[in-house]
């Protein structure tokens, strides 16, 4: 194994982590800040990807597609918030799980209705096409580096928004006592719609960016959603910092596990066997990691004050 490969894998881990962060940030905002479990977050990711693919195919411009993904996901988020989510804030987690589970069914089947079952495809914009050399002789895709950069920028921006602005304070205040913040003169309903739309837009952005790497298809959001949940639970629900740390950890552990475990096992068993067992364990690795974290810190690494 060369240094170049190791470096590449670290970047892969980071890129996966950052992508998860975009999902997790929206989730943790909605989830921690409004106290709502939104299983349908993955659907917003899908909406973003579909919007981007459709508009990019229409206009020929990825960038317009990207804008469309933000707009479409935010709009979908706002509509969902106003029609459904709004009624769920005072409910227990159970109702929220069920209602947003229902939303997944509606979104997935609805999208299939409109776009059919075949995957759409979306190309990387010319500007970001190609690879750059890495020290040690490897190469890395420019587009993936761009994803890392966007993720880091979003992380900083969000953290500032929540921790440093009055908007952030109000959002957090609303989480602990909606009624009270309203009684002090803050229009918490609109505020929540806005926050939900922001979270949705982030998911849509992630969907669009990933859509150019993978295929855009119905159901693409679900695996990412579960990973994003793992991320925020590891990081501590409601904490943007936790989401970032959790996402990067999960990204690195998953990538390194899938890469290194089969190699490690092949030291003492048949390579084919080692690859099978190694990849089986690698697929469970982040869940084991999460269980481990929660066993020692039942509220995640960066639990927010309650």
């Amino acid at each position, binding site marked *: 194994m060369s240094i170049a490969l190791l470096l590449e894998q670290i970047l892969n881990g980071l890129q996966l982590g950052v992508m998860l962060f975009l999902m997790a940030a929206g989730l943790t905002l909605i989830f921690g800040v409004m106290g709502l479990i939104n299983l349908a977050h993955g659907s917003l990711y899908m909406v973003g990807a579909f919007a981007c693919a459709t508009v990019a195919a229409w206009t020929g411009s990825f960038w317009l597609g990207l804008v469309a993904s933000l707009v479409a996901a935010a709009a979908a988020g706002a509509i969902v918030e106003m029609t459904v989510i709004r009624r769920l804030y005072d409910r227990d987690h159970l109702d929220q799980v*069920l209602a947003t*589970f229902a939303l997944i*069914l*509606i979104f*997935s089947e609805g999208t299939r*209705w409109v776009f059919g079952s075949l995957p759409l495809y979306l190309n990387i914009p010319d500007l970001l096409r190609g690879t750059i050399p890495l020290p040690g002789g490897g190469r890395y895709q420019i587009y993936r580096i761009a994803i890392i950069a966007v993720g880091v920028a979003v992380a900083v921006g969000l953290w500032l928004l929540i921790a440093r602005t009055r908007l952030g304070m109000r959002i957090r205040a609303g989480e602990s006592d909606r009624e009270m913040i309203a009684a002090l003169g803050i229009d918490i309903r609109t505020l929540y719609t806005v926050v939900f739309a922001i979270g949705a837009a982030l998911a849509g952005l992630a969907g669009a960016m990933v859509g150019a790497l993978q295929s855009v298809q119905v159901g693409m959001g679900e695996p990412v959603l579960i990973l994003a949940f793992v991320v925020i*639970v590891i990081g501590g629900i409601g904490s943007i910092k936790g989401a970032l740390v959790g996402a990067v950890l999960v990204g690195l552990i998953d990538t390194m596990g899938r890469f290194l475990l089969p190699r490690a096992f092949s030291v003492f068993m048949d390579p084919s066997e080692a690859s099978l067992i190694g990849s089986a364990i690698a697929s469970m690795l982040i869940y084991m990691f999460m*269980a481990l974290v*929660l066993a020692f810190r039942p509220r*995640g690494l960066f639990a927010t004050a309650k």
Partner: protein
Amino acid sequence: MTMNRETIVNISLALLLLAIPLIALQLNSPFYVTLATRMAILALAAVGLNLALGLGGMVSFGHAAYFGVGGYVAGILAHHAFSGLPLDFGLFQVPGTNMMPIIWVVAILVSGLLALFIGAISIRTSGVYFIMITLAFAQMTYYFANSWPAYGGEDGLSIFVRNQFPGVNTLRPLTYFFICYAILLAALVLFAAIRDSRFGAALQAARQNEVRVATVGINANRIRLAAFVISGMITGLAGALYADLNRFVSPSMLSWHMSGEFIVLIILGGVARLYGPVAGAMLFVMFEFLLGGMTDRWQFFLGLVLLGVVLLARGGLVGWLAGRARHG
């Protein structure tokens, strides 16, 4: 003795479920017997979950793990009985079997052990963390089953001939329905007893106010863990029955969709209500069947229906029919 409304609703539900296969046979549509058996088994699984979720407030998003493990116990034992080779645990060997009672006991024990292990770690967390950690453990079992080649991996494992129950012919759909129905009723009796017992009182109090339970000197976590294990056992038993119904087990029994479905059943029927899971399972299987027969887009409409139930009909079907629950 006067009956309250909930008792009447409960008896009606039990009779209705019993009536479906009998009417089906009259109409010469034996498939509805299978459908009713499915209802009974899913209801049983949800009764298990209802113990943890409804009474104990532990929203487990990973009960598919016990369901699937129960199913795999049935599948693996039957597989070995069929092939004649014993299960090899290295130090000792265990023969397979196709006797349902033995399979059930093993399924209950194994899923109970798994629930003990998962519960012991998960119960330290609460709220959303609990939901997610149970999901994570279930995902682990899912990925394990998926990539473990010995018993078929993702392809799953077939049970070529349905397992046996002494004295009856389980291959007859109606007989198998009666077996599942009887087990469901037994589980309901157990649920009711637990709910009304001292253990149930402590469990329900722990859901409402953990601090209070601790300050009267009861260790809430031990109570919860015990409930979680019993809950896993019941769901595990349901899994074994389900395997025999389909004559097949696969990792999809362990998937998070399955866990979600159990939660759906309970909410549809009524959380913490004795017959909530029964009502929920009947409703759900019927929706799935009717909608699935009408349109390929049935999931879309199922979504709308579920959404409607959560937003408009709180308390589920039993809550709607029998009014709010009372706690003496």
